[in-house]
């Protein structure tokens, strides 16, 4: 009997973990932050759109495609601005929550196209964004941070849980891969050596001269530790502040020392929102409303 009670309780907690209803503020804020990250990332990449999406650049033939075997036609040069206008309008709609469902799928479609059009230029952010937007496309959402008005402001929690787990797995596996495949455990100068590479920024060059190799070894251990400890740091509500601080400082360091990785870091940092308490997100939203966008982001009745 006790055993059955225990099982029922466990099942109840499992169902509650995935399907309890929650305020939409976290997912809505995540959608907006992710949209801003995509806008900045794609804005940077768009400088090279002719190389990337038209016959101006090198493209691998259909029979030699390395990852996805889906070959899509390239864009005529004249059509590039039209595609760009649609893509960026969709991203803006995603940010402001206008026709949100359509906006998500439009951005997803455009992103899938550019990923398939040039697999040479499709790095991890494309793949992460495709998966995240796909899930977001099915998720219920509210109208916080949105020009749309509507009810209700509650939703099942499963999309938030999926994204929370995604972030933790991403961080942990990054550390695990370093332990299993890399030299991070045997070579104390791995991070120092990596800083010399092609992504080295001016700031990284400055730090290489300023800090001794021992400090770089310390930072190497620090980075490995925070990644391996990320499940504890983010699952435990008591340790979460430490997770934000520790992992946040690592992301800032990467963004400052590695060229263009700031876009990737912004995408990853968007996931932090999903771990912030709902009240804090409401307070933040109200503080923003003090400025100019009060009418557009007016809070509907809860």
């Amino acid at each position, binding site marked *: 009997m006790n055993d059955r009670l225990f099982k029922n309780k466990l099942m109840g907690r499992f169902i509650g973990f995935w399907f309890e209803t929650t305020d939409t503020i976290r997912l809505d804020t995540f959608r907006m932050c992710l949209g801003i990250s995509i806008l900045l990332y794609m804005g940077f*990449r768009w400088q*090279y759109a002719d*190389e*990337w999406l038209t016959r101006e*650049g*090198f493209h*691998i*033939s259909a*029979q*030699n495609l*390395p990852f996805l075997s889906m070959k899509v036609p390239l864009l005529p040069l004249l059509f590039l601005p039209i595609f760009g206008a649609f893509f960026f309008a969709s991203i803006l709609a995603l940010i402001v929550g206008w026709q949100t469902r359509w906006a998500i799928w439009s951005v997803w479609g455009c992103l899938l196209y550019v990923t398939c059009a*040039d697999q*040479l*230029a499709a*790095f*991890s952010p494309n793949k992460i964004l495709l998966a995240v937007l796909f899930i977001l496309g099915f998720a219920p959402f509210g109208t916080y941070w949105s020009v749309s008005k509507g009810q209700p402001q509650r939703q099942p929690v499963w999309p938030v849980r999926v994204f929370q787990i995604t972030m933790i797995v991403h961080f942990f596996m990054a550390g695990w891969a370093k332990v299993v495949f890399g030299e991070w455990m045997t070579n104390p*100068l791995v991070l*120092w*050596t990596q800083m*010399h*590479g*092609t*992504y*080295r*920024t*001016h700031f*990284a*060059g*400055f730090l*290489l*001269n300023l800090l001794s*190799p021992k400090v770089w070894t310390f930072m190497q251990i620090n980075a490995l530790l925070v990644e391996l400890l990320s499940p504890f740091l983010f699952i435990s509500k008591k340790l979460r502040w430490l997770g934000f601080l520790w992992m946040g400082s690592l992301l800032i360091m990467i963004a400052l020392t*590695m*060229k*263009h*990785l700031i876009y*990737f870091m912004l995408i990853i940092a968007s996931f932090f929102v999903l771990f912030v308490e709902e009240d804090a997100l409401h307070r933040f939203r109200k503080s923003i409303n003090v400025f100019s966008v009060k009418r557009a982001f007016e809070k509907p009745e809860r």
Partner: protein
Amino acid sequence: MPERDYFQMETFGYRTRLFEALFLAKSQETKGLAIQKELAGWIAKRYTRLHPGQPKPRAVRFVAGLRRANLENVPSKRWQTTPLESFAKEDLYIISTHRIAP
């Protein structure tokens, strides 16, 4: 040849599109070589387009240079591509050479 004439997109992470084209599918050697051959053909065509008065290239060779990080010579600024001539001979290696049909 200056890389910017052929691949404008800047480094993202540690990879440029040229780097990807040369080193992706490394685990599948046949496909990797086939991609490099396509790349050589494309570079030869683009070279001819950019240099109309010059003779057409008869072959394209991909060469990589090895740079070692050392404590005596720590860089102080951002990454800049080292000209091929600055490398010692033992630090250069040929990735592949491809003949271009006339």
